[in-house]
């Protein structure tokens, strides 16, 4: 009772950070429910991952099977359904990732599990689990509770908390693979790397936008340096395109493109209404502009009111340092 199970997510030989984030949260929850933290690992020859997550949990249930070489929702669903039926944890946490959303809802329907997605926190009140999620793109939070018997299922959002210290020492148990056969309906074929070439800024995750404040084309290398460190694509307001610093396919605004990146850094952009209309959907907006009244600050999450030529070089330098 009160056991918290966590699905370890990995891909192409890399253990994904969400796994450790969830295990950190699981430890906090299990501390209040009085249960164990158990990491579930499906893979082939991924003993190193078992070793890593063991520092964050009380047990690792490791299914080592060549059929798990690459993620396949059908295989994972079969194995996890059997596992949940056998072990009956209080709650099973899966990352709210491209893998998790492809898997969890089907598992929930198959086993008729109480299921809440994109959870940002799990409170424990009087021994009961109360997940929290958001609506309207983060403008409203919602407290939820589960009905009926466990196991409960959640997908948990990435980067909501810091990974804790690896203070635990979970025993690694290799359990027999619960996958009886290869699958019938869905076949993994291959991974394909992202295309390098002309950029479609409407698909960019991180954008650095330049505006009038950058002043001249010869200042663009400063911006390009920042964008490179951030692995960002560059776009601009009309002023930047007009000035010939960027081609028109990089213009953001009502007569340009509408973008929805995770992160939008507006440098020297005043934020005229027609520009804002093209980027208002950005998840996090940072503005650097020496004009405190620039309308861009009305939509920014973080702002620096200062000369961009003083701020950007240091920003680039510090980012390089932190990311190395």
């Amino acid at each position, binding site marked *: 009772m009160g056991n918290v199970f966590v699905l370890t997510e990995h891909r192409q030989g890399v253990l994904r950070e969400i796994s450790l984030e969830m295990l950190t949260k699981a430890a906090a929850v299990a501390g209040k429910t009085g249960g164990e933290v158990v990491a579930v690992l499906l893979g082939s020859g991924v003993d190193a991952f078992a070793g890593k997550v063991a520092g964050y949990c009380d047990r690792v249930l490791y299914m080592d099977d060549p059929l798990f070489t690459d993620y396949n929702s059908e295989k994972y669903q079969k194995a996890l359904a059997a596992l949940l039926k056998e072990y009956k944890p209080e709650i099973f946490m899966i990352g709210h990732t491209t893998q998790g959303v492809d898997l969890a*809802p089907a598992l929930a329907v198959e086993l008729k599990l109480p299921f809440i997605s994109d959870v940002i926190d799990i409170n424990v009140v009087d021994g009961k689990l109360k997940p929290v999620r958001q609506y309207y793109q983060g403008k409203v939070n919602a407290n939820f509770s589960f009905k009926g018997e466990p196991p409960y299922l959640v997908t948990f959002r990435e980067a909501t908390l810091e990974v804790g210290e690896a203070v635990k020492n979970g025993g690694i148990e290799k359990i027999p693979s619960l996958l009886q056969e290869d699958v019938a309906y869905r076949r993994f074929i291959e991974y394909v790397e992202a295309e390098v070439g002309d950029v479609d800024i409407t698909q960019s995750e991180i954008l650095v936008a330049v505006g009038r404040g950058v002043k001249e084309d010869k200042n663009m290398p400063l911006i390009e340096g920042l964008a490179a460190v951030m692995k960002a694509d560059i776009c601009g307001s009309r002023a930047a395109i007009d000035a010939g610093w960027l081609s028109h396919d990089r213009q953001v605004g009502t007569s340009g493109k509408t973008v929805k990146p995770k992160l939008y850094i507006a440098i020297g952009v005043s934020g005229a209404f027609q520009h804002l209309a093209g980027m208002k959907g950005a998840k996090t907006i940072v503005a650097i502009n020496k004009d405190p009244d620039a309308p861009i600050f009305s939509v920014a999450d973080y702002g620096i009111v200062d000369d961009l030529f003083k701020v950007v070089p240091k920003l680039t330098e510090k980012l390089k340092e932190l990311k190395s």
Partner: protein
Amino acid sequence: MNIFVCVKRVPDTSEAIVKVDSSGRGVDSSKFSFDINESDNYAVEEAMLIKEAKGGNVRVVCAGTQDADVMIRMALAKGGNSAIRIDDPRINVIDPLQVAKVLAAAIKGKEFDLVLTGCMANDDGNMAVGVALAEELGVPHAAMVKKVEVETGMVKVYRELEGGLSEVVEMELPAVITIQTGINEPRYAPIRGIREAQKKELAVVKLEDLGLAPEAVGEGASLITLENFYIPKVESKAEILEGEPDQKAVTLAEKLVKGGLL
């Protein structure tokens, strides 16, 4: 190809001030503008492109009130053949598994090769209905698809993973695909087409018409309970960083990296 595409009417709250209403479990939507959910719009376009390439028909399915008819007609104007709107206030829309069950009831028993829907609704961000729907229908699925290649009896899809990596997956038909934004460029539905689409069938049904018992829906049938909404503590919209330029740059860099934004 028999294609179903599921669409949802959602508010555009990107610039709106969202306030919790007096019940504590809803929001004041009186000043919102509504339209088809963004990724559903891409799904509609993808359905039309497949129909244009392979022949067949596209049926639009929507769980919603009469307000959704405009958006359904717009989808029909783009090339949809007919539509089903499930109008029943008993559906507990907060529960994506229940919504999936209702949509499945509208599709089950009909011939279909593909069911397309957007990968995420912009209002609740659940990313669950499409995949749950596949399980309800007993067919394979793939979520967050950026490219669809229909072959005979099969479909090959490219799922968009973190960092721009694509996962290529092949599935037997029939199958459910949830569509990621940017997969195509949704066409414009000229007014002329929307008015002509009035002639296309838009069947409005209730749960009983779909063979669903009242006990199958409602809050009582859900295994999750929304207890209350609350506005998260937010600092005044822009956190203006303080200090000398160098300091501010460092603070910002730390926020970006430690906050997982980079």
